[in-house]
C-alpha cells in the first residue's frame, strides 16, 4: 500500500473544493471544525488523523513528486488530478483502504500500539527472568497502564505471557499476514530490540510513510476485532485508553453553555463570538455527541427533506443540495443534517 496513491485519492476527493493543505490537515487530524466536517462531507473520514506526526516538509515532498510525475497539477492552491492520475485511480477503491478507520481510532491507536509494545517487552523480559530493563516506551501514562495490567494478574508472568500469546495469535490470524509481520517486527523483547518503521521500510524498499500506513492498518484491524468481542480479548482490551472527548476546546465550551440552557444567540453574545462560529460548534457537536438533540435546531420535516435532497444529488457538496431545497432551509441546517448522519458518535 502506497502513501502516494492514498494522497492521489484524497486529492481527487477534494478536487475543485478544497486547498492542497486540506489533505495535510486531514491526515494530521487537525482539530478544527472545518477539517472534521470536511472529513465527513467528502467521505474521507477513514483517513482523519491517521498520520498525526506528519511533517509539512514530508507532505510537500509527496506533492512535488506527484506534480513531477504529472499525476497532479496544482492550480490556485488546489490539486487537480490529471488524466494519468485518474488512470491510476480508475477501478480501485480506496474508500475502505485496508479497513483503516481514522475517524474512529485516531485518538486511541498510537497509545494502543505503544501499550502493546510495552506489554510485550515487559512480559518477554520477565518470563526470561530479566527484571531490570529500560522500557522501550517513555510515556508515563502508558507505563502505568501496563503496570496496572500486570498487577491485575498478580504478577503471574507466565500466565500473562500465555494469555497474551493466545489473544495475539487469535487476533493476528484474522488480519493480513504481512501487516501482522510488520507490526511484530516493531516489537521488542528479551532476544532483540524491535525495528523502527524507517528500518523496515529500507528492508522492503518502500517509503517510511508506506510502512506507517501498514502499521496503522494493522492496529485498526486489531482494534476492530477486539472491540467486536471484548470478552474474547480481555487482556488486549485493557490496553485501550479511552479518550472520550472529541470536541475542540471551544466547541466544548459552547456545548457546556448549551447544556446549561442557553440558546445559540445567547451563547454568541456571552462568548463574544460570531453567530457563524457558534453554528460551527453546533455542527461539530452534532457530529460527535449522541446526547445532542438536533431537533432543537431543525424540524423533523426539514431534516427529512434535506436527507432526501442528499440522496437525490448523491453528493455531499453543499451548494447543489441547497439549490434543491426551499429558501428557508439554510446552510447551517444542511450541515447539521450531514453531521447527524455520522453513525459513530459517543
Amino acid at each position, binding site marked *: 500500500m502506497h502513501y502516494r496513491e492514498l494522497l492521489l485519492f484524497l486529492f481527487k476527493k477534494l478536487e475543485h473544493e478544497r486547498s492542497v493543505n486540506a489533505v495535510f490537515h486531514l491526515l494530521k487530524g487537525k482539530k478544527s471544525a472545518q477539517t472534521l466536517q470536511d472529513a465527513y462531507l467528502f467521505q474521507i473520514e477513514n483517513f482523519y488523523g491517521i498520520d498525526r*506526526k506528519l511533517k509539512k516538509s514530508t507532505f510537500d515532498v509527496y506533492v512535488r513528486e506527484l506534480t513531477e510525475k504529472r499525476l497532479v497539477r496544482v492550480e490556485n492552491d488546489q490539486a487537480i488530478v490529471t488524466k494519468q492520475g485518474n488512470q491510476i485511480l480508475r477501478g480501485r477503491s480506496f474508500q475502505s483502504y485496508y479497513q483503516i478507520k481514522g475517524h474512529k481510532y485516531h485518538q486511541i491507536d498510537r497509545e494502543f500500539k*505503544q501499550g502493546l509494545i510495552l506489554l*510485550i517487552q515487559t*512480559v*518477554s523480559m520477565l*518470563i*526470561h527472568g530479566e*527484571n*531490570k*530493563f*529500560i*522500557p*522501550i*516506551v*517513555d510515556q*508515563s501514562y502508558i507505563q502505568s497502564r501496563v503496570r496496572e495490567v500486570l498487577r491485575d494478574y498478580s504478577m503471574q508472568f507466565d500466565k500473562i*505471557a500465555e494469555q*497474551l*500469546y493466545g489473544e*495475539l*495469535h487469535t487476533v*493476528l490470524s484474522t488480519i493480513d*499476514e504481512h501487516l*501482522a*509481520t510488520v*507490526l*511484530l*517486527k516493531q*516489537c*521488542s*523483547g*528479551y*532476544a*532483540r*530490540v*524491535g*525495528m*523502527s*518503521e*524507517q*528500518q523496515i521500510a*529500507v528492508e522492503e524498499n518502500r517509503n517510511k510513510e508506506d510502512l506507517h500506513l501498514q502499521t496503522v492498518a494493522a492496529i485498526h484491524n486489531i482494534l476492530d476485532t477486539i472491540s467486536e468481542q471484548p470478552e474474547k480479548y480481555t487482556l488486549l482490551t485493557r490496553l485501550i485508553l479511552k479518550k472520550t472527548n472529541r470536541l475542540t476546546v471551544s466547541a466544548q465550551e459552547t456545548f457546556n453553555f448549551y447544556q446549561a440552557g442557553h440558546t445559540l444567540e445567547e451563547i454568541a453574545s456571552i462568548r463574544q463570538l460570531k453567530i457563524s462560529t457558534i453554528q460551527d460548534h453546533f455542527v461539530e457537536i452534532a457530529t460527535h455527541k449522541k446526547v445532542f438533540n438536533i431537533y432543537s435546531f431543525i424540524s423533523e420535516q426539514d431534516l427529512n427533506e434535506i436527507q432526501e435532497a442528499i440522496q437525490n444529488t448523491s453528493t455531499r457538496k453543499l451548494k447543489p443540495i441547497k439549490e434543491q431545497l426551499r429558501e428557508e432551509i439554510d446552510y447551517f441546517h444542511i450541515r447539521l443534517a450531514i453531521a447527524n448522519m455520522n453513525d459513530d458518535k459517543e
Partner: protein
Amino acid sequence: MNSAISNDIDQSLISLFGFKQFRAGQREIIESIRSGNHTLATLPTGSGKSICYQLPALIGEGMTVVVSPLISLMVDQVKLLKAQGIKRVASLNSMMNAKQKSAVINRLDTYKLLYCSPEMLQQERVQLALSNKTIDFFVIDEAHCISQWGHEFRPDFLRLRDVVKKLNNPTVLALSATATPSIRQDIIKQLKLPMTELVYPIDRPNITFSVDEVTPNNKDERLIDLIEQKNIPTMIYFSSRKVSEAVYRLLQSKFPEREVAYYHGGMEQDERLLIQQQFMNNQLDIICCTSAFGMGVNKSNIRLVIHYHMPSTIESFIQEVGRAGRDGKQSVSILLYAPGDEYLPFQLIQTELPTEDEVNLFLNENMNGQPEDYLNETKMRFLELQKEQHQKTQKSEQAKRIIQYRNDRERIKQQSIFKLVDWIKADTCRRVGLFSHFQPDVSNAKYECCDCCDFRLEEWRNTPETYQKKNKPLRDNWEALLGELLMKG
C-alpha cells in the same frame, strides 16, 4: 579515613549498583563530600562520574539536588536508575507540562535524588519547596558551564550560588569532564565557596588518535575504504543531520550485510529510543549520528569513532571520542579533515548568536511582527535571557551591553575552533596536544599512540578486522516472531 564510613560505601556500591570496586577517583570524591567539603572534581566521561553523587544521595539522610544543563541527560539518568530498581528519583525540567511539574514538587518528600534544570531552580515555588527540605548535597554537573571563559557558558548557571544560599548551604559538588585549570579557578571564584579540588586525568591510554587529511571530494571514498576493511563496532559523528542521513544511505547501499542506522535530534522520540537500544544491545554495527547521540550511552565495545565533520571544540571532541573503548581494549579515533571543513562550525556560530541588527530589532518594542518569526530558537533563548539579565540596565545601554557580550561569546567560540584546527594541523603528538590543556601530565599510550608518533593509518586501514556478532537473524513470519517474543526458551 574512618573505616566505618568506607565499609558503608563499599557495601552500598555492591547493593545499589552491583559493582565490587570503585573506579579511580570515585571513593575520594564520595568521601570528600560526605565529610562536608565543598568539592570540585574532574573525571573523564565514562568513568562513572554519576556514581560520585548517586551513591551518597541514596544512603544519605536528606535529599540531593543535581543541576545539569542537558535535559536529555537528566531524563536518561532517571530512566537508568529506575531500570536498576532505584525508584526514589525524579527530574524537574522545562520539557514537562505544568501538571507533571506539580506532581513532582508535591511529592518532594518521596525522593532521594532530584535532577533539576537551572531554569526550574530559578522558580520561586521550587526554591521554596526545596528550602523546607534537608538538602545533603547540591551537585552541579557540567560545572564548566559556570565559567564565562568556557565554550559552553550558561548565564543561568551563574545564579546557582544564590540558589545554594537559599537552600541553606548544602555541601556542593561541582563536576566536569572538561575543565582547564583556568576554568576550574573561575568555577571556584564564581561559586564563592572554599572548595577541595580533586583532579583526575581525563586522557584515555587505550585510544589511538589519527587525523586523516582528505579532499572534499574523496571523503566518502576514504570512509568507505575504511569501513570495508574494519567490520567493528563503529560510531560516525556528523555536525549535520542531513549529512548523517545521506552517509547512512550510502553505507547502507555499499554494505548491505552490515547493520547501519542513523540518529539525530530531529527524529521522533520513539524512534530514537529504539535505535539507542538496538545499539546498546549490539544489534547495530555502525551508527551515523550527531552529538545528540551518546548521552547516557554506556556501551563498552565501541572500537572505532570516526569524525566525518570536525566538532566545534576540543572539549566535545574529547567527549565524543571518549565513547570508544570503555572496556579498556584498543580503540581508534579517526578525524576526517578536508581543507575548509572549519567553515561549518564557524557558520554554526552565526546561527547561534544573533547579529547586531537582530539584537536591536528584538529590543525595539515598536516593531511589527513577533521576534519568533525571524529568530531561531537558540537566538531567541539567548536574547530573552540577556534581556532579563539587563533588566536594571538603562534602556539606552541595553543594546550596547548585549552586543558587547555577543561579541565576546563569538570570539571565545571562534578561538575554540581555531584551537581544534591547530591541533588537526599539528605534527606533534596528538595526545599531548589534546590533553595538556587539562592536566599537567599525559600518560603514555597503552597501544599505539597517534599518527604523529607511531600509528600508521594506511597500514591499519589495510588490515582487515571483524568481530563476533550476537545477532540472530530476524524471522519473516509473524507466528515465529510472536513465539520468539512470548515463549520461553
